[in-house]
């Protein structure tokens, strides 16, 4: 038991913490990528241009309708194959490895982006039409209108949903262990397969995931409070 949590060459504590670091690193880069995707595709969905609607609809339907593991397999094995195929056209016959971190972030980011798209679209739709009209009446146009009037309100409405997407993203990172990135899940599998102590190491994994979730909940609560200044917290009475 002590070996499972002690640090240095005799224990697994440092390896497990390193795994937690990679889980957090992939989760944060994925959710950021997902938010960028989400903002762009929410714009597509709300656009009056039909083609953009279709592209966004296609993306969210495919990603949300297909198991996450399949998306990761497709990007990891298919992505590498596609890159090498293109390289061959240019006369390069070697093996090109896409870094597990990059491919994992792309895959999980693409998944979280689809959910973020819907959350942001819903939040923008929930903002009263009059806010846009008032903004225009004040002489704000385009980007300035969104920056000053719409975005702060979207943030308030989208944050609870984005908090959900974050939790999904955090757990999806467990699936990218197939790419060879040693995050919490892969590290626990290595440790339990090497020591025949699955119970101890999977329990440590649970604790690590719960710590990350708890800390991120605190951050999201703080953010929600900040963006809800001036609003009364409604409670069902």
């Amino acid at each position, binding site marked *: 038991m002590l070996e499972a949590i002690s640090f240095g*060459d005799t224990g697994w504590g440092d390896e497990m913490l390193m795994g937690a670091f990679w889980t957090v690193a992939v989760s944060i880069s994925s959710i950021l990528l997902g938010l960028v995707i989400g903002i762009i595709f929410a714009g597509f969905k709300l656009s009056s241009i039909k083609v953009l609607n279709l592209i966004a609809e296609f993306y969210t339907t495919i990603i949300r309708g297909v198991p996450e593991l399949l998306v990761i*397999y497709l990007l990891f094995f298919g992505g590498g194959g596609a890159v090498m195929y293109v390289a061959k056209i240019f006369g390069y016959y070697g093996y090109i490895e896409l870094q597990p971190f990059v491919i994992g972030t792309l895959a999980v980011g693409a998944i979280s982006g689809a959910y973020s798209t819907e959350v942001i679209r819903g939040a923008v739709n929930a903002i009263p039409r009059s806010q846009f009209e008032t903004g225009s009446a004040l002489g704000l146009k385009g980007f300035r209108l969104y920056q000053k009037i719409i975005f702060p309100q979207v943030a308030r409405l989208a944050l609870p949903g984005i908090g959900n997407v974050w939790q999904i993203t955090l757990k999806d990172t467990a699936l990218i262990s197939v790419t060879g990135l040693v995050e919490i899940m892969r590290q626990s599998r*290595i440790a339990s397969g090497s020591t025949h102590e699955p119970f101890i190491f999977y329990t440590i994994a649970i604790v690590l995931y719960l710590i990350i979730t708890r800390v991120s909940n605190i951050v999201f609560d703080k953010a929600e409070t900040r963006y809800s200044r001036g609003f009364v917290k409604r409670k069902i009475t």
Partner: protein
Amino acid sequence: MKKINLIFISLILAVSSTIAIAGDWSKIRIGTEGAYEPWNFTDSAGNIVGAEIDLANDLCKRMNAECTFVQQDWDGIIPALTQGKYDVIMAGMSVTDERKKTISFSKAYMTEPARFFTLNSSPLSTFSSAKNLNLDDDGSATAGTISSLNNALKGAKLGVTVATIHEDFANTYLDTDLKIYPTQDEMNLDLAAGRIDAMLCDVGTAEAFMGTAGGANVVTFGPNVFGGPLGEGVGAGIRQSDKELKAMFDQAIADAAADGTITKISMQWFGKDLAP
């Protein structure tokens, strides 16, 4: 062309590349799981160790190659080989016909054979025969061992588990009365209770049972059985196109088996001889 390559590669963010020139096997990348003690696993300092790691290092020395290990989750270990993430799989992988459809294998470097088990009170426990029964060997020794087995088992009830390589073997080579079980556990219990006279199964699973109180009276008899329908054992997975590399591994494995290196490594990690 070189210039285009460079432009192309720099276009893709954070792409690392390694050039494998066909036919040059001075550098070999070996893919392993690193989570299958004692075959290949990770120590608490993060090093990959195990029987297959020792063996791979030995084989590479024989092939004058510089070997590096690449860790890959068991899921996706074959696709990563065919795609070129590494050149060889050494991950406790049994050679099976199903896998042979996708990749080729070197000759087996270790086998966990099947054996017969009975109670220590049974007359079968004193049966003696050749150490090994290789079903791929068509010689007279093989036929002799099979017929002496059939003589010893005459009138006995032999247990096997359903739809296994062991059932295939018993159906093909033995004319004893078979009792077929859905699981190893049920077969274990019936052997201990004396409902069957003997059972045929993998050494590892039976030894696990023999270590428990219920299996304390169980003993093994007869030869190590392998080859034929029992498969070839654990081998190195290699891309079907790399015929030259397969030949190099076959040669190195044959040499390592002949001079006792595999036996030595096997005794060190498994406490028994799994040499082919």
